[in-house]
């Protein structure tokens, strides 16, 4: 009796259904290709696997030349933002079960940044915008000796949403304005400016508002909400941009 149940256990594990999933990946090798090209791969996946697992399987078992970024593989480093079925997602947070696998899954690099190879883009313009908004604490007062800067719970909650950014560029590269005009700071830079503009400990909100009030700043935003929908951290990006806009109109943070 007891052996029977023990025997049953491994066969249950075997019975986990796997699916053949077709991935169509937009490949580009700058040494060989003039234009990016689409390539199909069939991989055997479980419903609980992620797109990142599929990419790993392809790279490890089928085609070692497939190139993509990933670091932590758990949705916190922001390395593997890519366009999956036409929407910006983190490969490590997109489960097979949430996709329609009766059709092929299209995977391509994020849009609006220079394509380097396969799924890798040059992130430098993105980080340049990020640096430009001065994303660091600038306080003119010193806390008392051995003390911290005190902040009330309410003041902390004011910018809580925008502290969650992992700089994956899913929002910025989902923005139609950014695609056509790479000069636009983009949602991610504005989110990180928002994080300090509304921080009660920071004293340079004015400087950041001046930067974002310029012609490549928040007024470029056309409220398409693509950024909010793309954010893997659930940041209300368009809301944050709207708050910066209204701070600019009122002249105070």
């Amino acid at each position, binding site marked *: 009796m007891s052996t029977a149940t023990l025997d049953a256990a491994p*066969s249950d594990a*075997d019975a986990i259904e*796997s699916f053949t999933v077709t991935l*169509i990946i*937009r490949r580009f090798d700058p040494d060989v290709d003039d*234009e*990016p*090209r*689409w*390539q*199909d*791969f*069939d*991989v*055997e996946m479980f419903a609980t696997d992620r797109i990142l697992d599929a990419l790993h*399987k392809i790279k490890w*078992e*089928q*085609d070692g030349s497939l190139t993509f970024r990933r670091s932590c593989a758990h949705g916190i480093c922001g390395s593997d933002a890519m*366009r999956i*079925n*036409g*929407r910006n997602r983190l490969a490590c947070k997109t489960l097979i079960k949430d996709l329609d696998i009766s059709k092929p899954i*299209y995977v*391509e690099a994020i*849009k609006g940044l220079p394509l380097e190879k396969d799924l890798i883009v040059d992130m430098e313009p993105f980080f340049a915008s990020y640096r430009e908004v001065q994303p660091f604490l600038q306080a003119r007062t010193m806390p008392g000796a051995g003390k911290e800067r005190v902040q009330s719970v309410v003041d902390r909650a004011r910018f809580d949403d925008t502290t969650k950014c992992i700089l994956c560029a899913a929002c910025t590269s*989902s923005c*139609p304005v950014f695609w056509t005009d790479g000069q636009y700071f983009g949602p991610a830079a504005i989110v990180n400016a928002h994080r300090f503009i509304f921080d009660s400990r920071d004293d340079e909100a004015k400087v950041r508002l001046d930067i974002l009030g310029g012609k490549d700043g928040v007024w470029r935003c*056309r*409220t*398409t*909400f*693509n950024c*909010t*929908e793309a954010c893997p951290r659930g940041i*209300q990006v*368009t*809301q944050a941009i*709207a708050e910066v*806009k*209204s701070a600019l109109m009122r002249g105070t943070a």
Partner: protein
Amino acid sequence: MSVKTVGTPEQSREPELSTTTSRRPAGTLYRGREGMWSWVLHRITGVAIFFFLLVHVLDTALVRVSPEAYNAVIGTYQTPVMGLGEVALVGAIVFHAFNGIRIILIDFWSKGTVYQRAMFYVVIGLWVITMIGFVPRHLINVFSH
């Protein structure tokens, strides 16, 4: 047992042979949601309305040139083709107007960004209601001449 032997290298190399490369260099269309499509429609209707207004200013200015020329031009607008064009024009203006109010609310109402999706469907609803009121009556006028 229908145990899948996926892990073995011989098996998994199999698909590589049948790998097909489809030449479609362009990337896929970004699948934005209501917000993106409302923006696309707002742009298209906005540009269309701009060109209409340009023509409209010119044809109205003709009355200063000569009333006969003005009448001749306005006369060509009385054709059924222009009547259908007017349906498109009113459709574009009504969408642009209602969606414009939606955009103002997103910018100035503190809850605007939360309800943007619902507001888009309200815009579509109001557009349908307005067009139901306008189109039959307008087409009866156009085709009864």
